């Protein structure tokens, strides 16, 4: 994308416009400089990730006032550039009296704090740190300008609300050179300091945030083996012939790749292998090669056989119970990469570069972009949990009836209501869960906190464990009282992680939620199913529970349930621990 010319981006953006059917992602841009050339670039970055944006740019240099108008956007970006800020001071800044400078600083602090307040409940905000890169550096004693800018940045770091991502634009200036990023001519003539190059780099660097906010991060990294995980071909060169040594000239790059795979597996990303080889050869290399960093225990799933890789990747996704669009695939072969791009275009493919020294950097860039590297406790246990899933699957065969099998698992659910300790995990589940998700509403931590604090809405979270292990917080139900009728409560969101499905937990959890609503004094529950590309498996879920279908239109089904006539399933073999603090 950084290699595309601005004109090409405009053309591609136009081609993609109108091809994405999802609900628009509302973006507001606040700025005190002209950034209009960035609009189409941002649109293109969104659209190429299947996100349809609606971008509104606030009035020029009207950040404080427009912040209040933009608070309900999904994302607000703030370009509060030092250049125009400093232009407010008519004196020579270095000659400014200390108290004049102090009162100027206070003025900006109070403006900043108004913006922070106005945007504190917006799901996501990107705020650019102030840059002093435009001004000459005085090495002997720090210039007033530089000191002033660093004080502003300190204020921002200390006071910005938690939904703010602070963007270090100096880092972009550094990587690409200030002269590539800033054009004084256009600042003077049109208050447009940023070059098209800068805007491209900037929009690309916020891509991970766009992916995260729209539930589009990847879940698994699937690697080929020969010339991808190590140098050489194990089937031909043998165990001794393959190279992944940190001490060897080429092996060191593969050594780094393996370190990255281990790094990801510790952060809950699923690592898998998909290779055309004899399974025994590959496993022997992982187990016994003295330079192997990536070990068998880091690998959740492997398809080492001679089948075509598209079929193998599909099987991997199926066994992991995730979509193929959650996969990242790395291979050194043109043939395999093209096959996957052709047959499974939704899989993110990385082609091992011909210049092997670029390989680690390229992978790391993709890692930063595609994966969640700030996992919570549950993510960390994920490798273990996916393995348990396979043990459960294989234990299934030993029992005659599925109920006998489920009873043998010793499943225990714990349901907590409005427990603030789990806000990050709950928000993350709303962002990531696609398949068992009745309404697919995405919420930030802020929004979950608001549901919990509000007296007329409830957030129930479900924890699951069985004799094979602890799956952690894997189900969420958000309930909101009807605005007109205090006897009616709506299920705003209901979702469960796929790895716990198929054990009737999905019924027991809702039985319990219904009981909860009854104890809180409600007589009717309303619910909705909103169709997405991925949630077909739950399209009849409410019918199965016993809800009455009220109406169906444009992919949305509306339901109602009279609690007094509801009959729970009473599944005895699932035990519920609850803290119904009514």
């Amino acid at each position: 994308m950084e290699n595309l010319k601005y004109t090409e981006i405009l053309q591609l953006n136009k081609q993609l416009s109108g091809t994405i059917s999802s609900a628009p992602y509302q973006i507001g841009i606040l700025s005190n400089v002209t950034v209009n050339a960035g609009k189409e670039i941002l649109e293109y970055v969104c659209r190429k990730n299947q996100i349809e944006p609606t971008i509104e740019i606030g009035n020029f240099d009207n950040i404080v006032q427009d912040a209040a108008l933009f608070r309900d956007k999904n994302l607000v970006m703030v370009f509060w550039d030092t250049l125009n800020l400093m232009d407010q001071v008519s004196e020579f800044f270095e000659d400014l009296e200390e108290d004049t400078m102090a009162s100027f600083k206070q003025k900006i602090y109070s403006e900043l704090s108004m913006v922070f307040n106005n945007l504190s409940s917006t799901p996501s905000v990107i705020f650019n740190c102030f840059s002093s890169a435009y001004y000459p550096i005085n090495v002997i004693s720090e210039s007033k300008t530089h000191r002033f800018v660093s004080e502003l940045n300190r204020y921002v770091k200390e006071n910005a609300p938690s939904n703010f991502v602070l963007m270090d634009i100096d880092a972009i200036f550094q990587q690409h050179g200030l002269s590539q990023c800033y054009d004084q001519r256009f600042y003077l003539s049109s208050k447009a300091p940023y070059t098209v190059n800068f805007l491209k780099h900037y929009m690309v660097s916020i891509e991970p945030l766009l992916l995260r906010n729209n539930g589009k991060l990847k879940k698994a990294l699937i690697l080929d083996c020969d010339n991808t995980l190590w140098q050489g071909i194990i089937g031909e060169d043998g165990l001794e012939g393959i190279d992944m040594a940190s001490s060897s000239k080429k092996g060191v790059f593969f050594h780094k790749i393996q370190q990255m795979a281990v790094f990801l597996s510790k952060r809950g990303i699923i690592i898998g292998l998909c290779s055309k080889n004899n399974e025994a050869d590959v496993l022997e290399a992982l187990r016994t090669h003295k330079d192997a960093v990536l070990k068998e225990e880091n690998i959740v799933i492997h398809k080492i056989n001679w089948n075509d890789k598209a079929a193998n990747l599909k099987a991997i996704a199926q066994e992991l119970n995730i979509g193929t669009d959650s996969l990242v695939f790395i291979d050194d072969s043109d043939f395999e990469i093209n096959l996957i791009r052709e047959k499974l275009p939704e899989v993110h493919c990385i082609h091992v570069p011909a210049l092997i020294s670029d390989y680690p950097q390229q992978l790391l860039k993709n890692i930063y972009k595609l994966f969640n590297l700030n996992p919570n406790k549950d993510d960390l246990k994920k490798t273990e949990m996916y393995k348990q899933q396979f043990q459960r699957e294989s234990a299934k065969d030993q029992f005659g009836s599925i109920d006998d099998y489920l009873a043998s698992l010793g499943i225990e659910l714990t349901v907590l209501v409005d427990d603030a300790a789990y806000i990050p995990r709950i928000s993350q589940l709303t962002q990531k869960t696609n398949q068992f998700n009745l309404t697919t509403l995405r919420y930030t931590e802020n929004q979950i906190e608001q549901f919990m604090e509000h007296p007329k809405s409830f957030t129930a979270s479900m924890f699951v464990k069985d004799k094979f292990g602890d799956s952690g917080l894997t189900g969420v139900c958000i309930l909101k009282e009807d605005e007109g009728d205090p006897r009616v409560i709506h299920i705003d969101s209901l979702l469960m992680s796929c790895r716990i499905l198929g054990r009737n937990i999905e019924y027991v959890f809702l039985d319990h939620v219904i009981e909860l609503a009854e104890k809180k004094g409600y007589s009717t529950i309303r619910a909705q199913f909103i169709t997405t590309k991925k949630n077909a498996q739950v399209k009849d879920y409410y019918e199965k529970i016993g809800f009455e279908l009220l109406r169906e239109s444009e992919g949305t089904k509306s339901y109602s349930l009279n609690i007094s006539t509801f009959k729970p399933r009473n599944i005895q073999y699932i035990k519920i621990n609850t803290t119904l603090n009514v």
Partner: protein
Amino acid sequence: MNNSRIKQVMSAVFEVPLDSINENSSTDNLENWDSLRHLNLILALEEEFGVSIPDEEVGNLVNFKLIELTINELVK
């Protein structure tokens, strides 16, 4: 050569079909040609031709012929 590349750029920036850009296109007859898009046009032209359009010229480039003249001069 430059002629058709300039038309490509103008078509993309002003979001109009390529064949609607001609030798007579100007700020008077292209509705989307406002001051903000004018800036985007200059940015796009500079990138496309790898040139830096002098400040004093920027405001003058109000029609296709003037743009072509300036670009031809700069890429010589």
